[in-house]
């Protein structure tokens, strides 16, 4: 079954989070009292659903017939030859319905919302991919849908905003704070606490209070499970290295999670260094941040010495977030995964390279993973294998890219 979300890892025993949603010192439930009861209810409903064969069969059917899974594991032959090192495979999440990995989780949570009898769905979105995925599944299930989006992101992602509206969602501009993803999350939380009786909050990344980081991971882990099976079929062995971009970290954890117990597999999470970490204009919480508490969990944050969250900067709206999923914080501290960053310019080069060499236009988010791969692959032998998560397609970004190059379209 594709949607076998509760598959435990190997017997050697990675089994986080604990009962209280902690990944070591990270994660947890740092939320207002009004949300505590509802979040416990959600945790119970989630446990019930993933152990219910009828629910899992429906999710599985949706992933096959509606999303189009399994997504291919594509050998990028020309790009591999150009870089002259390790053999590169792309996990093609860009081919999913709605164009990114976000839909894997949105479908799971929307079915859960329906099971819980909720009639109204809310979501936050940065690049608009999660907003589009949520608006899509809400349309299909006939649920009311409200998407919170920072004013700045609405400007950057006009196409996705229009897509959401076409799908019948209300897109609410968020004008507080830095007017980006973090503020959209604040606003969605405020809506949720006010409309808790009929509303289900579909968080798009592995952040928020427990159970969200674990639940979103479980729904996204299909990426890694498929990739593992596919690489075994195509190469007869496990990969040497995994690479994925990190904003909140949902596509990365989706790829990494099923490999955590395979200790020979190296993992690289790639954050947005924006204009360069040394400029202070970046979104690299793990590479340049410190632990703290935001949006319901303890994790690494881009913050100042007073504990205020600093506005982040990244060319891709989906990575423009000052926090990161708590499980990544734990994987960093434990040394199991490596976290690195690439700049806007490097990401942009990754975007162009893949487009011109493979005829695949990647999202600017995914372009960060590609940019790091282009540094890593040449340092590895030709018999080594890299899997890169191509988390989304780049159609939504062509205006940003054109703007940067002074072209008006």
């Amino acid at each position, binding site marked *: 079954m594709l949607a076998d979300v509760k598959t435990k890892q190997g017997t050697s025993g990675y089994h986080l989070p604990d009962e*209280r949603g902690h990944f070591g010192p990270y994660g*947890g*439930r*740092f*939320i*207002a*009292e*009004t*949300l*505590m*009861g*509802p979040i416990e209810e959600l945790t119970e409903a989630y446990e019930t659903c993933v152990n219910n064969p009828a629910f899992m069969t429906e999710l599985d059917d949706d992933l096959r017939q509606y999303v189009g899974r399994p997504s291919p594991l594509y050998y990028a032959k020309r790009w591999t030859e150009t870089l002259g090192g390790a053999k590169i495979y792309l996990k093609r999440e860009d081919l999913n319905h709605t164009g990114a990995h976000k839909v894997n989780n949105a479908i799971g949570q929307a079915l859960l919302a329906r099971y819980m009898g909720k009639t109204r769905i809310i979501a936050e979105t940065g690049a608009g991919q999660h907003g589009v995925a949520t608006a899509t599944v809400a349309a299909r299930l006939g649920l009311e849908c409200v998407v919170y989006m920072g004013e700045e992101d609405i400007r950057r992602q006009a196409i996705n905003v229009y897509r959401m509206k076409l799908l019948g969602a209300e897109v609410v501009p968020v004008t*507080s*704070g830095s007017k980006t993803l*973090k*503020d959209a999350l*604040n606003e969605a*939380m*405020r809506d949720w*606490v*006010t409309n*808790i*009786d009929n509303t289900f909050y579909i968080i798009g990344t592995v952040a928020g209070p427990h159970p969200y980081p674990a639940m979103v991971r479980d729904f996204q882990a299909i990426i890694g499970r498929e990739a593992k099976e596919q690489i075994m079929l195509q190469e007869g062995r496990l990969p040497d290295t995994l690479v994925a971009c990190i904003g909140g970290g949902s596509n990365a954890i989706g790829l990494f999670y099923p490999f955590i117990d395979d200790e020979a597999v190296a993992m690289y999470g790639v954050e947005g260094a924006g204009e360069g970490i040394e400029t202070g204009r970046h979104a690299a919480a793990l590479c340049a941040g*410190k*632990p*703290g*508490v*935001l*949006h*319901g969990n*303890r994790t690494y*944050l881009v*913050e100042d*010495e*007073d*504990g*205020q*969250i600093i506005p982040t900067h990244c060319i891709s709206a989906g990575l423009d977030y000052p926090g990161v999923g708590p499980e990544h914080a734990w994987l960093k501290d434990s040394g199991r995964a490596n976290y690195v960053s690439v700049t806007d310019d490097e990401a942009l080069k990754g975007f162009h390279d893949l487009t011109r060499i493979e005829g695949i236009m990647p999202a600017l988010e995914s372009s960060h993973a590609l940019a790091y791969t282009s540094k890593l692959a040449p340092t590895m032998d030709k018999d080594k294998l890299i899997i890169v998560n191509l988390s989304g397609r780049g159609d939504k970004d062509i205006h940003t890219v054109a703007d940067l190059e002074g072209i008006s379209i």
Partner: protein
Amino acid sequence: MSRIATRFTALQQNNRKALIPYVTAGDPRPDITVSLMHAMVKAGADILELGVPFSDPMAEGPVIQRAMERALQHHVSLRDVLAMVAEFRQQDNDTPVLLMGYLNPIEVMGYARFAKAAVKAGVDGVLIVDLPPEEAEELLVELDEIGLDIIFLVSPTTDEKRIQKIAKVSRGFIYYVSLKGVTGAGHLDTDEVAERVNCIKAYSKIPVGVGFGIKDAESAARVARVADAVVVGSALVKKVEETGGVADKLEAAITTLLTDIRAGIDAATI
């Protein structure tokens, strides 16, 4: 006995209910806060609640969000807020002061360092919006050791089992949030509030305060009949906003509203 407990005991002996006004420290300017604190005491406040500005105040409605943004334009930090309390204490050693805020500034300062600095400044209690008892163990050890009260919230969605858990770790008083939603919103159902306050009292000996949705003498009077303390926040912060940073006008507006609310509470309860 802590200043908070002393104050509640004294009020109870006179059959009075506590009035707890909230303002955000440093809103609209840092130099206004201490004198505003004194003015609120003069207008009838029994305990002062001071908001610590945070960049991402997830549980606040637009009024208090904007207040925090105004304070943050002046980079008002937790350290600055403690300095304001210390300055207030030079002239007032009796009125309890409570800090309301979010966990991250305290995390960054460090729990032990914060607890020590807060007591030194003359702070009596803390209310941390995003810290439920489940995550508070470590901080509780530090606060109990040094004698700083921690006030937890109970909400309309809190069941009896959780009320027991919260009652066990609460110090000073328990704060009942009378509405689902963010600060500054909604309509108050006094019957429901009374029922919930009684439920809390079944598990706790410390006083119960009620906040959210109290904006004038009339709503304060209704709540005072059923609770030990009345918290007024957004209605005051709105006045701060309306007077646009002119200190005299601001103090006058706050004094007028608080005096009115004080009279409403006393008329209903004494």
